[in-house]
C-alpha cells in the first residue's frame, strides 16, 4: 500500500513516501506531484526511507517529478535504496536530481 504525506516547511516541500511505488500507485504519486507544482516551492524532497519497493513506473515518476517542477527548483531524493540511486546515475538523471543520504532544508 503506497502512502505519501506532504510536509511543507518554508520554501521546501517534502513528500514522505512509504509502501510500494509501482504501476498501481504511480498515478497517485503523479497527482501529488501536480499538487506540489502548484505551490512553486524552491525545493522538493522525496523522502524514500519508508519505501519498500519501487518499480519501473516509480523510477519514471522521478523523471515526471523533475519535469513537473520548474528548472529553478531543486529536486532531492533522500533515503533511496542503492538500486534506485544507481538507476538515477546510470540513466543520466543525476544532472537533474540530487541524491542524498539525508536531507536538510
Amino acid at each position, binding site marked *: 500500500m503506497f502512502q505519501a504525506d506532504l510536509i511543507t516547511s518554508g520554501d521546501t516541500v517534502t513528500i514522505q513516501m512509504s509502501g510500494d511505488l509501482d504501476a498501481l500507485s504511480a498515478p497517485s504519486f503523479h497527482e501529488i506531484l501536480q499538487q506540489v507544482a502548484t505551490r512553486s516551492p524552491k525545493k522538493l524532497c522525496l523522502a524514500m526511507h519508508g519505501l519498500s519497493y519501487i518499480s519501473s513506473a516509480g523510477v*519514471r515518476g522521478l523523471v515526471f517529478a523533475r519535469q513537473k517542477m520548474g528548472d529553478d527548483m531543486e529536486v532531492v531524493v533522500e533515503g533511496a535504496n542503492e538500486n534506485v540511486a544507481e538507476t538515477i*546515475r*546510470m*540513466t543520466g538523471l543525476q*544532472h537533474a536530481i540530487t541524491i542524498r543520504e539525508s536531507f536538510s532544508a
Partner: protein
Amino acid sequence: MTSPMLDRIDSYPTHRVSGFPVRHGNPLLPGATFLHGGVNFAVCSENATAVSLVLYHHGDSEPYAELPIPDSFRTGHIWAIVVYELDGLDDLEYGYRCEGPAGEPGGVLSDPYAKLVAGREVWGREPDWSEPYQHRSRLMFHDFDWGDDTAPRIPREELVIYEAHVRGFTRHPSSAVTAPGTYAGLREKLPYLKSLGINAIELMPIFEFDEFENSRVNADTGERLYNFWGYSTVSFYAPKSGYAASGKYGMAGDELKALVRECHSHGIEVILDVVFNHTAEGNHEGPTISFKGLDNDVWYMMTPEGYYYNFSGTGNTMNCNHPVVRKFVLDCLRYWAVEYRIDGFRFDLAAILSRDVDGTPLPNPPILQELAFDPVLRGCVLIAEAWDAAGLYEVGSFPNYHRWSEWNGRYRDTIRRFVKGDTGMVGEMATRYVGSPDLYAGRATAASINFVTAHDGFTLYDLVSYNDKHNEANGEDNRDGANDNNSWNCGAEGETDDKEINDLRRRQVKNFLALLLTSQGVPMILAGDERGRTQWGNNNAYCHDSDLSWVDWTPNPLTDELVRFTGDLVRFRAAHPAVRTAEHPTGREVRPGLAEISWHGVTAYAPDWSDGSRLMAVMRCAPMGDAVDCVYVVANTHWEEHDVELPLLPDGALWRLAADTGAADCSFPLGEEPALDDQHVLRVGPRSTVVLCAQTV
C-alpha cells in the same frame, strides 16, 4: 507567463471495444505513440483478415485485454486504433494477434516498431520458456534531457573508429566500473577512449536480440554458450535491454542516451553496427516473433518454391528492397539518428541490401540510394560490410552514391600478408596504404575503412600468435570460423615463454598499428587490440560470454606499452594532415621539390616494387597552415635490418622520430619527437616500422 496546452477537439473516443474507449487511429504513426489522452497503435499487415491488440501487465502470462481492431479502423493494410483510459503505461506490454485467410488466429506478435522490448531485461537470466509471448513490446517515454548536447560532426577522414561490444568491453572484473557489462559501464570508460585519442566508437549490435538464441552448453567444458555478439535482431527500434543496468526498470533507452550524450561531450561519435540482412526468426524451423506472422513474403526473400533464401547464412534474408521493408529500414535509421542522436551506421552483410526481391544484385538498389540521399541521415556516416554470405563481394564496387564507405576487406588481407613477410606484396600494400585509389578512385579516402582485425576473426595479438584457428570451445569441432586468416605465430603456436618470439609478436602488433594509423582512409581498431587482448586462438568468439571475449583491464608491462604506443600514433595521426588527406595523394607538388607523395626504397626515390621486395618507404607532404607537414614511413618486413637513405628536406628542416617498432618501447608524444642524429641514413631493424615527421616552411 506560460501558455496553456491546447487540447485537441478530436481527441475523444467514438467506440468501445472490449470495454475500452477507442477511436480510429492514425495509420501514419506506426508503432505505439502517445497521443493526448490515449495511445495510438498502428501495425501493417497485408495478409491479415483481422487484427487484435493484445494488452498485458508487465510480465503476466495472460493478457488482461484483447481488442479486435474494427475493420472500419483499417486504412489500406494499416490497422490503427487509439485506446483511451489505459492505466499504468509504464507497466503496459502489448502485441498483436493476426488472423490470416485460413481463419486461424496465431500467437501474439511483437510490434516491429516497438521502442522497447521486455522479456530479456537482465542479461543471461534464463527465460520462462513456457511463456508463449517471449519478446514483449513496450512503450517508451521520449523525455530524456539532452541538455546542450551537440554532435561532434568530425570530418570523415579524421575519424578513428574503435569497434567494441557493449558487454564485453567492461564485463571483466578488472574493468572496475560500477555496472560491468552495461551502457553505464561503457560510459565510465570513455575517459580511457578519450586518452587514446579515439573519436568514434562503433558498437556491435545493440538492437534488441536474444542472447538465448541457439544457446547451449558445451558438453566438453560445461560452459553456457550464448548469442553473445547479437547479430540476430529481434526488434529493430528497441535498444538491448540486457545491456542496461537499468533495463529492469524499463530505462534502457535513457541509459543508452546518457552514454551517447557523454560520448558527444568527449568528442566521440557513436556508430551502430546494424543488422538488416536477416532477423532472429530464422528459416521455416525458426520462431515466429513478428514479421513472419504479419507478412512473411513481404519481409523475407522467398524462393519460387516457398523456401527462405539464405544469403545471410543464418536462415532467412530480409527483403530490403521491397517498398514496405525499405520504408521500415529508413524509418528505423531516422529514428535512431533523431531519438538517440546516433552519428553513423555500419551495415552488417550490406551486400544483401543491394539484392532485388528475388536475390539478383541490383546496379542501383533503391534502399541504398534512399539511405544515401535521405536528408535526416545526411550527417550520418554510412559504412557497408560490402559482402554477404552467398558470395556477393562488392568491396570497391558497392553502390555508393559518393556517400557510402566500405569495410575494406582487401586492406585487411593485404596488410596481414605484407606484415607477415609474404613476398610480392609491396606494390599492393602501397596501394592500400594510400586509401586504395584503385578501388575508390574519384571518391574520398574516407570511402575506405581500413582495418587489420574486427570482431570476426583473430584479435591482433592472436594474429601474430597463431597459425590456425582454435575454436574448440565453440563446441562445433573447430569447423566454424574462417580458415584463411593470413596469420603467423612468429615461431610457436599460442602462449610461449620464448622471449624472442614474444618480442617479435610485440613488434608485429606495433607494425600493424603503426601502418594502420598512418594509412590514408579511416582506421578502425578492434577493442582490446591496443592492450594485446587474446582469445587464445579462437577466431569466432560469437558465443562466449566469458574472459575469452571480454576486455581484460589488468595492467601489465605489455598492455601499458601497447596502450601508450597506440595513443601516441592516434595523436600523431590527428596532428599530421599528410596521413589523413581527404583526397588520394598524387605526385603533384605542395611546394617546389615536395610532392604530395613519393615512394622510396633503400635508396631515396628508388622504390623496389619487385616480387622479392619486403620494404616499403613513403613520404607524404601536405600543407599545414603556412608550413608543410612531411611524414616518412618505412616498413621493413624482412628478417634482416636495412639501412635506408632518407629523402632530403629543404631549408634545413630535420627528420624527427615519432615511432620505431624495432626499438624497445619507442614512441614519442607530440612535440617530444627527437631529431635524428643522422639525417641521411636510417637503420631499420628486422621486421620493423619507423615513422618520421618534419615540418618545413
